[in-house]
């Protein structure tokens, strides 16, 4: 049932090439996070989301220090090793200090065009709108040059509908997982989600609908292990979900930047693109990387965990991600105060040995099961 998704992940390169051919669109690499794929698609490109990979940095070491996160390092490794040769250009957002500088490195080292969506985080509403407006103009011009298409109201509406549909289907999968915990294994769930990063929206939507249809009539196994909410930047490495499966953990909800924080976003409103993108960026789920006091992460996470009936929260810490690391101690304290147990694991995308983390995870489960 999940084979089509796992097949994508076992041959990401082949998948992208095939999809690009079928779509007849140039591949645009989209870096983390929240760059609206709709804009790329509406400009004639095929957006592929690059959230790092399992390559251990070697060539990228010549440019990025060991204290850069493994998302940045492995993404650059992929490019320098020739693995991203089909990518015509890159789309960045100004998500964090590392990514902002990474774009500058790319501009000097990688002979490919880049655009950056500079995300304003001021609370001065009008200024935010104006700045975002001029920023979007720049981005859209850059994307059209890169992808060779023309962004029109029609192409925007089409892209918005397609990606809106994809996220709506993903939300159905999330809902299913919550209601029938254990029905989809953690590994399968995130494989389904991740496969979407490399597929055209129409094709992916078809795969998702087929899957949902099959799942609709299925019942979850008898109650087993603890229900967890995972919180972090990226849901990788997938290997860790295999361990969670082995421990009988049922992940019922998440707070990943490339998980629920993105999936929860409504269809991009394109009639007023500036307003639409602003809404898209800042809600509904808050992110550690985008300052937004109107939507506090603390209340949100407590509420999110309660609604999911989670027994505990596991922080999925990608080493050297400062925005995530700053928030965590206070978040954990808040969760403790609310009677929600939490724990943290430290990860790198290229990690090979999961023994120590496995021990931590099982100890956390033992603790939850009392």
């Amino acid at each position, binding site marked *: 049932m999940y084979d089509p998704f796992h097949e994508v992940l076992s041959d990401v390169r082949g998948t992208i090439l095939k999809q690009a051919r079928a779509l007849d669109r140039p591949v645009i690499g989209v870096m983390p996070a929240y760059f609206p794929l709709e804009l790329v698609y509406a400009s004639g490109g095929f957006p592929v989301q690059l959230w790092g990979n399992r390559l251990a940095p070697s060539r990228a070491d010549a440019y990025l220090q060991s204290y850069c996160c493994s998302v940045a390092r492995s993404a650059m490794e992929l490019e320098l090793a020739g693995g991203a040769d089909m990518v015509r250009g890159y789309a960045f957002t100004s998500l964090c200090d590392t990514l902002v500088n990474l774009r500058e490195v790319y501009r000097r080292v990688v002979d490919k065009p880049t655009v950056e969506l500079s995300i304003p985080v001021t609370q001065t509403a009008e200024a935010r709108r104006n700045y975002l407006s001029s920023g979007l103009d720049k981005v859209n011009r850059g994307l059209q040059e890169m992808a060779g298409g023309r962004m029109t109201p029609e192409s925007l509406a089409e892209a918005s509908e397609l990606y809106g549909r994809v996220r709506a289907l993903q939300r159905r999968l999330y809902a299913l997982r919550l209601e029938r915990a254990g029905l989809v294994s953690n590994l399968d769930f995130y494989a389904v989600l991740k496969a979407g990063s490399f597929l055209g929206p129409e094709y992916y939507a078809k795969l998702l609908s087929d899957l949902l249809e099959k799942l609709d009539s299925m019942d979850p196994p008898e109650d087993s292990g603890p229900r967890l909410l995972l919180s972090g930047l990226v849901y990788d490495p997938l290997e860790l979900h295999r361990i969670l499966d082995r421990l009988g953990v049922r992940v019922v909800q998440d707070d990943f930047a490339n998980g629920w924080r993105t999936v929860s976003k409504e269809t991009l409103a394109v009639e007023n693109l500036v307003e639409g993108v602003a809404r898209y960026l800042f809600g509904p789920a808050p992110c550690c990387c985008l300052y937004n006091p109107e939507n506090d992460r603390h209340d949100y996470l407590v509420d999110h965990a309660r609604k999911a009936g989670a027994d505990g929260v596991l922080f999925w810490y990608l080493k050297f991600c400062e925005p995530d690391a700053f928030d965590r101690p206070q978040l954990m304290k808040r969760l403790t105060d609310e009677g929600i147990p939490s724990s943290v694991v430290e990860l790198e995308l290229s990690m090979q040995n999961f023994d*120590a983390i496995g021990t931590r995870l099982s*100890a956390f489960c*033992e603790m939850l099961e009392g």
Partner: protein
Amino acid sequence: MRFWGGIDVGSLSADAVIIDEEGRLLGHAILPTGRDSREAGSRAYAGALEAAGLTPGDVVRVYSTGYSRARVREAEGAKTEIACHARGAHALYPDVGTIIDIGGQDSKAIQVGKGGRVLNFVMNDKCAAGTGRFLEVMAGALETPLDHLDELAAQSTETLTISSICTVFAESEVVSLISQGKKPADIAMAVSRAIARRTVGLATRVGVSGRVVMTGGVAKNRAVVDLLAEILGAPVDVPDEPQIVGALGAALFARDERG
């Protein structure tokens, strides 16, 4: 009479115990793990049986723990070392509140509640600072056997500081202190203080309450234990055999399983 066994196979040592219905310790063995962890677990178990004067047939059930817990041939069940240290330490000290366990590859602080339940725990970051491995490297740099490090530190007269977190950097600090002609005793003390400080950080994160018990091989190092107590401002108890606490916990879990 019915008996139960616990086997703890960690990265450096394989430890096994045999207990009776009352949880009394009848025999134990501590062996280096070596390359074959499965074999090491079996040998430790055989050693514990021999010490208890029993044969495998006398034992109802065995549980394993430690990094290689899944590889232990004799075990019918497994628990993490976190749960087992809590359970074992609680059996020895019913009023234990906080456990500090410094093992070869990792160190952890565990908050223990009623019945030896784990309330919370934290473990060291992936780097080796604050672990037994750190002490081993430093002992190597000082050309002193690991188990003599505390005797050496006891003769310290001058306070020196090792500041690096990284084991590699810390080693180069030790080397440069040696080349400056600093006394090995003072360096040994500085090394012990470095590891104690790192560990106090862990303990504070988990919250220090009730009796503090230290387990794991490094608990045999008096200098580290005394410094821990000094920095924490609380007494730190060490069981007679701090290395077998995990195995004891595993045996207790084996005993408590129904059937």
